[in-house]
C-alpha cells in the first residue's frame, strides 16, 4: 500500500519535471482524466467529444484532434493516435501553462514558439509544414459554423481573403504566375506577432480541487 503510494508520487514527480505542472495540479488533472475516461487508462475521441460544455465550441473538432496529435506530445513522431494516456494528456495541457515570475526571457521565448507551434499544428492537419488554403478554409468554416446563416461561401471567402493577406504581407513581390502554397510556420509567427499570443495563451490550472470539479464528477 505504502509502496504504491510512493510509486504514484514518484510517477507524478516525473511528470511534473516533464511538463512543469505542480504535483497538485497533476493530481487534479489526473482526477479529471479519470472522470473523462471513466476510470480507464486511456482516453479516446468520443470521451472528449461528449463533454457537455464543449458542445457549443465551434472548433471542437480541431481541439480534440490536437490532443491526439503526436506532434503535440513532444515526441518526434508524426500522425495521430486513437487514444492517449494520461501523460500525453498532460503534455497537451502543458502548452497552456502560465509562466511564473521566475521564468527567464529565453524560456519565455521557447514557450512562445511552443504555443505558436501548437496552434500551427492544429491548422496544419497533414503535417507538411504549411497551412494550405484548403486547410485554412476548413478552419474558418468550422469557426463560423455556429454563426447561423453565414454560409460556407462566406467562410471560403474569408479564408481566401486571409490567405491573400498573408501572401501579400510575406511575399510582397509576386510574379503573376507564382502560386502561394500556404502559410509556413515562419509566416505564421510573423503574422501573429501583433496578437501577443504569448501573454494570453494561458489557463489557470488550479492547485486545489474546486467544488465545481466535484460537482461535475457527481453528475457524470
Amino acid at each position, binding site marked *: 500500500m505504502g509502496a504504491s503510494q510512493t510509486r504514484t508520487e514518484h510517477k507524478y514527480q516525473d511528470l511534473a519535471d516533464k511538463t512543469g505542472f505542480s504535483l497538485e495540479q497533476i493530481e487534479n*488533472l489526473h482526477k*479529471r482524466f479519470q472522470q*473523462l475516461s471513466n476510470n480507464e487508462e486511456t482516453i479516446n475521441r468520443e470521451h472528449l467529444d461528449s*463533454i457537455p*460544455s*464543449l458542445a*457549443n*465550441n*465551434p*472548433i*471542437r473538432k480541431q*481541439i480534440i484532434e*490536437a*490532443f491526439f496529435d503526436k506532434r503535440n506530445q513532444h515526441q518526434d513522431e508524426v500522425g495521430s493516435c486513437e487514444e492517449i494516456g494520461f501523460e500525453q494528456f498532460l503534455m497537451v*495541457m502543458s502548452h*497552456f501553462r502560465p*509562466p511564473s*515570475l521566475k521564468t527567464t526571457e529565453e524560456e519565455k521565448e521557447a514557450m512562445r514558439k511552443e504555443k505558436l507551434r501548437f*496552434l500551427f499544428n492544429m491548422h496544419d492537419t497533414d503535417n507538411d509544414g504549411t497551412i494550405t*488554403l484548403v486547410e485554412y478554409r476548413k*478552419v474558418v468554416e468550422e*469557426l*463560423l459554423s455556429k*454563426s*447561423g446563416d*453565414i*454560409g460556407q*461561401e*462566406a467562410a*471560403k*471567402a*474569408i479564408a*481566401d*481573403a*486571409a*490567405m*491573400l*493577406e*498573408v501572401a*501579400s*504581407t510575406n511575399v*510582397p*513581390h*509576386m*510574379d*503573376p504566375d*507564382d*502560386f*502561394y502554397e500556404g502559410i509556413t510556420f515562419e509566416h505564421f509567427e510573423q503574422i*501573429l*506577432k*501583433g*496578437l501577443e499570443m504569448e*501573454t*494570453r495563451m*494561458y*489557463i*489557470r490550472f488550479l492547485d486545489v480541487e474546486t467544488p465545481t*470539479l466535484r460537482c*461535475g464528477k457527481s453528475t457524470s
Partner: protein
Amino acid sequence: MTSAHLLLLICLISGVTSVKGDVALLHQEVITGISIVTFKWNHVKTPYLVALWILVAVLAKLVIESFPSVTNVIPESALLICFGWILGGIIWAADLQQTFSLTPTVFFYFLLPQIILDAGYSMPNKLFFTNLGGILLYAILGTVWCAATLGLSLWGCQAGGAMGALDIGLLQYLLFGSLIAAVDPVAVLAVFEQVHVNEVLFIMVFGESLLNDGVTVVLFNVFDAFVKLGGPRINAVEIIKGIISFFVVAFGGSLVGLAFGLLVSLLSKYTKNIQIIEPGFIFVLGYLSYLTADMLSLSAILSVTFCGVSCQKYLNSNMAESSVNTVRYVMKVFANGSETIIFVFLGISAIDKTIWVWNTGFVLLTLFFTLVYRFIGTFIQTWWLNQYRLVPIAFIDQLIMSYGGLRGAVAYGLATMLDDQRIKEKKLMIGTTLIVVYFTVILQGVTMKPFVTWLKVKRAAVAEVTLIEKVQNKVFEHSLVAIEDISGQIGDNYLRGKWKIFEEKWMSRFLLTSEARKKQDYIFNVFHQLNLKDAVDYVDEGERRGSLEFVRNESAFINFKKKLGDEFSEVLPDIMAAASDDPDAMRRDPVSSVSLQMHEKTMQGTRETEDIDAHHLLQQHLYKGRKQHLHRYSRNHLDINTDDNEVQEIFQRTMRNRLESFKSAKMGLAPAKTITKHTKKDQQQKVIFIYSIEYMGYYTIASGGSFPFRVNYKAGAGIENPTFMPDPDPMAPMQIPPWQAEDEPDGSTVSPSQRAQVRLPWTPTNLRRLAPLRISTQSTDSFAQADTPASQEKDKKWPPPPPPPSDK
C-alpha cells in the same frame, strides 16, 4: 498673429463688459422714437460669452496642434494649461480681478459628463472586463489608501510642526486627501494617448482613473458628511454607515448606468424610422443617467461610464452605419472640446490673487506624499494582484502606472466645492490642488514619454487590423475555452465563454434588431470593414490616376445589353450581336458571392434594391434629378430621390439620350471602325471595345463638368462597389443592375471570393487585397491595363469622343 487675434478677443470681451453699464442706462431712458438698431449686450451676454470661450479654447487647440514638434515633447494638456495662464494674465490685466474661473457647477454638469460618456462608450470592453479585478482593486483600494495615508501623514506633519501655524483637523485632512487622491481620466487620457503604452498597462491606468473618479467623489461626500457632522458625534455606527453608503453609492451608480445603457440599446432597436435623430438618444440618455444618479445621490460618474460601456455594442449594431459614425464623431467633438476648455480654465483659474494662500510646508508635503504614496500603493497592490494574475504585471509597468497618476480637474472641481464655513483653509487647499495638478500634468506629463522610452516599456503594436489576425484571435479564444472545458477548470475563459452564450441567447434577442443579430459575427464584420476599405481604396486609386473609367467599364457595358436590350435592341444591333458573340461577357456567375450576402440582408426586398439600383445608376450617369437637392431642405430625410416613377423616367430619358449620342457617334465612322475591329473573343481587346463605347457614352455626361462618383451608403450596407455586388437572379436580366453584373470569364468555383483568389497574381502594392482578384478574375480590368507594360499601349487608341448631346 494668433496671439493678436486672441488679444482682440479678450479686448472685445472686457471692453464689452465695461460697456454693460451704459447699456443698462440706455434701457432706462424714455424711448422717444423708434431706434433702428439697438445694442442689446445684456440679452445675449451669457450665451455669447459661452460661445466665445468655446471658440477661444478651440482656437488655442488649433494653434497648439499646428506645432507638432512642440506637442511631441510637451503634451497638449500642459500646453493648454500654459495658454490658460497667459489668457488669465491678460484678463487680470484688463479687469484687475478674475472674472472667469471654473465653477463646480459648470464643470460637473456641463464639461465632465461628455468626457466620461465618451470614455465609457469607446472603452475596449473585452480588455476592460478581463482586467476588471485589477482595475477595481486600484480604483477602490488604491484611492482609499492614497486618501487615508495622505490625510494622516499631513496631519502628522502638522502635529510635528512642519507647517507653521496651520491648524486643520484630522477629518479635514482626510477630506482633502480624498479629493486629491483620484487619478484624473482626462489628464491620463491626454498623456497616455500620446505615449502608446501596451494595452494592459493602458487599460489599467485608464480604467482605474475612470472608476476612481467615481470613488473619490463618493469618498469626498462621505468625509464631507463627517466634517459636517463634526468630530465628537462620529461613532462606530456613523462610520459603518459611511462605509455602507460608499458601496451603495458606487454600485448603485453603476446599476443606474447599466439600466440606462440597456434602455438606450432597447430604444435603438426601434429608431429605424427616425434615423435622423437616432444618434441623439445616447447623448440625451447618457446625460440623463448622469443626472439621475446625481439626483439619487449615487455616483454620477460611474453611472455614465457604465451607461457607455453597456450600450456601445448594441448601439453599434442596431443603428445605421451613418448614425454610428455620427455618434462616434459627435462624441469625440464634445469630449475633446470640453477637455480643451477644462485645461484652459485650469490655467486661467490660477491667475487670481484671491485664491492664493501660501504655505510652503503644506504644499510641498502634499506634493511629496501624493507621489510617494502613489508609488507605495501601486507596488503593494500589484504585488498582491500578481499572486492571482496569470500574467503578472512587470516591474517596469508598475513604475509607469505609479508615475501615470496624474491629478486633474476633478480634484480641482471638488476643491472648489469645499465649504469655507467649516474648512477655513479652503483657499490653501484649492491652491495646493492646483499646484499638484500642474505638477503632475505638466512635469510628469512632459517626462512621461522619455521615461517610457528610457525604461523600454512595452509599447502597443500599432498594427493594421488584418483579417487573419482576427480569425486567429477567434480560433485562439475558442481553443482556450475548449481547453478549460476539457481540463475541467473554471477560469476566466470559461466564464467568458458562458457569458457569451448567455449574451447571444438573451441579451441580443432583446436588444438587437433581427438584421443586426444576423450580421453580428465578429470576423464577418471585420471582413465587411476590410471590404469597404478596399472599395474606397480602389476608387481612390482610380481617382488618383485621373479616371474612374475602370470602375465603370464593365458595368456600363452590361447596362447596354441587359437593361436596355429589349427596348432598344433595334438601335444597336451591331453591339447586341457583338455582345452575344462573346459568351464570356454574357456569362453570369451563378454562385452568389460573399459580400452580397451581407447586402442582401440589409436590403429589404427587391423593391428597395431596385430603388437603390436606379439611384446608383443615376449617380453613375451624372444626371442630376431635380429632387437631388431636396435633402438640404428636409430635416427628416437624408435619402435622396427614391421615387420609383421619377427615377424610372429620368433613367429612360438618360438612356435615350445616350443612345442617340451613341448612334450619332457611330455614324461618325471612326469609332465604329474601332469597335468592329475589336469585337472578338479576345479579352484584352474586348475591354477596349467596352471602353470605346463607354467612352462615348460617358463623355456626353462627363463633359458637363463635374465628375461623378458616389459611394453609396445604405443603412449598414456599406459601399456598393461593382466588384462586390450580387447577381440576384441570373434568369431575370431585367433585375440585374448594370454595376452589379460583372464579367467573370473564368466561372470557376472559386468565384465567390472577391477579396482573394487561390492563385495570387502580382499586386499593385497599395491595393493589396482588392486589386489582385480583379486582375485575376478578369484580365479586362483597367488595373491590369494600367499595370501592363507599354506593349499594349498601342491598343489604347481611343476613338475621338462624340460631341455632347445638344440638349445638355
